C-alpha cells in the first residue's frame, strides 16, 4: 500500500503481487482499508472484514457472501500484555562451559524434560532404510 500524495489516501500499488495477507488492513487504525477478491476468480459482492483490537486481545471477522449470507468469528490474539516479553539479555548470563555444550537458551528447563536428548555417533550407517 502507498499513499497518493495528491488525495492523501492509501491505495494498492501492485494488486498482482498482493497476497491478501490483510497486514495493511489490520494495521490501519482507522479501519480505512477494504479488500476485494481478485478479478480472475472472485465474483463481486462479497466482503471479508477484520477488526483487530490489541487492547482487548481479540480479532473479529465478518464474512459476507455474494448472496448476502453472513458469518462472524472472534479469536484471541495474545494472552500477555504487548511489550511484556523479556530480552534474552535479562536472563542470567550462561557460564563458559555452556557455550560448547548443545543446550540452547533456557534449556533444559524450557524443554520440560530432564535433559536434552542426544545421539551416539557410533550408530551412524550409510545406505538404504
Amino acid at each position, binding site marked *: 500500500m502507498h499513499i497518493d500524495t495528491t488525495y492523501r489516501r492509501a491505495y494498492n*500499488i*501492485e494488486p*498482482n*503481487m498482493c*497476497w*491478501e*495477507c490483510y*497486514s495493511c488492513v489490520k*494495521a490501519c487504525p482507522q479501519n480505512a482499508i477494504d*479488500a476485494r*477478491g*481478485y*478479478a*480472475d*476468480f*472472485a*465474483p463481486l*459482492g*462479497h*466482503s*471479508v472484514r477484520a477488526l483487530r483490537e490489541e487492547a482487548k486481545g481479540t*480479532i473479529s471477522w465478518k*464474512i459476507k*457472501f*455474494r*448472496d448476502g*449470507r453472513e458469518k462472524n*468469528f472472534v*479469536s484471541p*490474539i*495474545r*494472552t500477555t500484555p*504487548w511489550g*511484556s*516479553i523479556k*530480552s*534474552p*539479555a535479562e536472563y542470567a548470563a550462561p557460564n563458559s562451559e555452556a*557455550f560448547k555444550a*548443545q543446550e*540452547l*537458551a*533456557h*534449556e533444559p528447563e*524450557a*524443554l*520440560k524434560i530432564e535433559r*536434552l*536428548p*542426544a*545421539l*551416539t*555417533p557410533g*550408530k*551412524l*550407517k*550409510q*545406505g*538404504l*532404510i
Partner: protein
Amino acid sequence: MGLFNRRKTVFVDSDILVIGGGMSGCGATYESRYWGRDLKIVCVEKANIERSGAVAQGLYAINCYMGMQWNENQPEDHVRYARNDLMGLVREDLGYDIARHVDSTVHKFEEWGLPMMRDPKTGRYQREGKWQIMIHGESYKPIVAEAARKAATEVYNRIMVTHLLMDKTKANRVAGAVGFNVRNGNFYVFRAKAVIVCAGGASHIFKPRAVGEGMGRTWYAPWSSASAYALPILAGAKMTQMENRIVLTRFKDGYGPVGAYFLHLKTYTQNAYGEDYEPKWYESLKAIVGDYVDRHPVPTCLRNHALLEEVKAGRGPIRMVTKEAFQDPHKETVGWENFLGMTIGQAVVWASQNIDPKHVNPELTTSEPYVMGSHATCSGAWASGPSDYAPAEYQWGYNRMMTVAGLFGAGDTIGGTAHKFSSGSFTEGRIAGKAAVNYVNDLGREQPQVSETEYEDLRKLVFQPLETYEVGRNEIVAGTVSPSYILPIHGLQRLEKIMDEYVGGISAHYTTNEPLLTRGLELLGMLKEDLAFLGAEDLHQLQRAWELHHRVLASEAVTHHTMFRTETRWPGYYYRADHAKLDDANWHCFTLSRYDLQSGKWEMEKAPVYHIID
C-alpha cells in the same frame, strides 16, 4: 547521473548480521543475544519484521512439536517421519537436532503470549495431528518479532539485501552484505564477522494458476523471492536437493491448506462422481516407487500423484467432503477460523463464490511448484551438522555453517531438513545463532576486511536498472514496450513460462526430460543476459528487479539439479519422463551443486545419505 549522487551510502558494522527477520531470522536474533551479551547483533529485513515472511497472516497450527514432556513423540520419531515423507532422503543429523530443541521454542512462544489451544480432557496442547498443535495464531509473527526486537542491537526494516560481501584477505570467507532501502534508496554496506541468511523460500519461479490480478494469490508468499538461495549461491556456497520442489494439494484458487481438514476435521476427498480414487492408483505408483508406496503415513508427493492422475483421467474436479463434518458447529468454526488465521484469501474465494462448506463440498487442486527448505521438501544450502554426533562428512565447521566460512543459515535457507515449519525454522535460527556467537568469539579481534572496489562496483550494479529505465524511457512515447529494456514483470513472466513448460510446472503436468531441461537452460541463459537490461521506474520496481535476479539464479539451480538426478524420486512433485522410476541403486544420495560466479558454470556432485536412526 543525478540518480546516484542523491543516494547516501550507509555503513553498518556488526558482529552478527541476520538477513531476513521471518521465523528463523527472529530465532537467530534472539539466540545470538542470549549467548553474545556484548556483541552487536543486527537484523536486516526487506519489509517490516512486525509482519514479514510466510507467517505474515498468522498461523492456526504449529506443525512441529514433539511433546516430549508427555512422552507423545521423541526426536527419533520425527526423523523417521520426515525421512519417510521425503522418500528416504533427509539430513538426519540436522533433523534430529531441530526435533530435540523444538519443544523449548514452543514453550517460550506460549510464555510470550501466543494463545495455545488445549485438549479439555487431558490439559495438554490440542493436537491437530501427530506433529501439529493448534493455536490462535493471528499475532504469531508480531509476538515473535517483539522477542527479536528486544534482542537485536538494531533492526533495519525496508532494506533489501542484494549480495553478500566476501573477505578480501581470506578466500571463501564472508564479510557482510549490501542492499538498498526500498523507501529512500540509500545504499547499505553491512560489515559483519558472521552472517546468518534467513531469507525464506521461493514462490513465483513457476507460473502460478492465476496470471492476472490474482497472480499474487499463491500459496507461499509472493515476497518469498529466493534470496535465501541466490545469496549463498552467488557467494559460492554448495546447495543441496534443489530439484526437490514442492507441489501442494490446496483448496482451489485461495490455496487454503488442507492439513486441519484432513487431520482434525476428518474430511476426505472424492472425485467428481463421489468415488474414493486413491486406491485406484496404487499399482501405478508401485510401478514407479516400489515398496515406498506401502509406507505410513503415505508420503505427501504420492498422495498428489493419485489426485493428478484422477484429474488427467477426466474425473475432476476433486472435492473435499466437508458437508458432513461441518454439521458440527465446533468443526465449522475450526474450518473457517483455520483460514481466517492463516490464508484469508480462501475465505474471500468462498464468500465470493457462495461456497459454504456446510452445504457444498469445495474443490481441491494442486499448486504450482515452490522451492523451500522448511515444509515437506528440503531444498537449500548444504550445512555443517551438530558437533556431538554428525558424521564426519557432514561436519566441517560450526553447526549450520555453509561451505563458506562465517556464513550460516536457517529455515527455508538450509537444505536436507524437511518438516521444520514455523517452530522448527525458529529453532534452527536459534541453533545457527548460538553457533555464530561461538564462531565470532573464536575469531577474536580479527575484523572482516571488505574491499571498497567490491562494494562500489555492487553499488553501480544495484542501481543500474533505474538508470537503464531513465535513459531508455526517452526512446518511447508511452506504454511499456521499449527496445532497450524489459520491466521486472516481463522478466518474471518469462521466467515462469520457461520453468512451467520446460522444468515441470502445471501446464506440463509436472513432467520434464533431458531435452526439455536442456532447452530450458538455454532460455534461462538468455534471460540471465537480459537481466542486464532490466528497467526500474522507481525504487519499488528496483526491488522487483533484484527479486527477479534472485529467482532466476535459484531457478537455474533447480534446473541443473533436476537434470543431474536421473530418476523420478518424488512422483506428485515432478516426473522425469526419461527416467520414470525411483532408482535407489544410483540415487539414494543427495545432489550438491556449486556455482562459479566468474565462469557462470555449475558443478554437480553426489553426497552420501547417512541413516542415524533405525
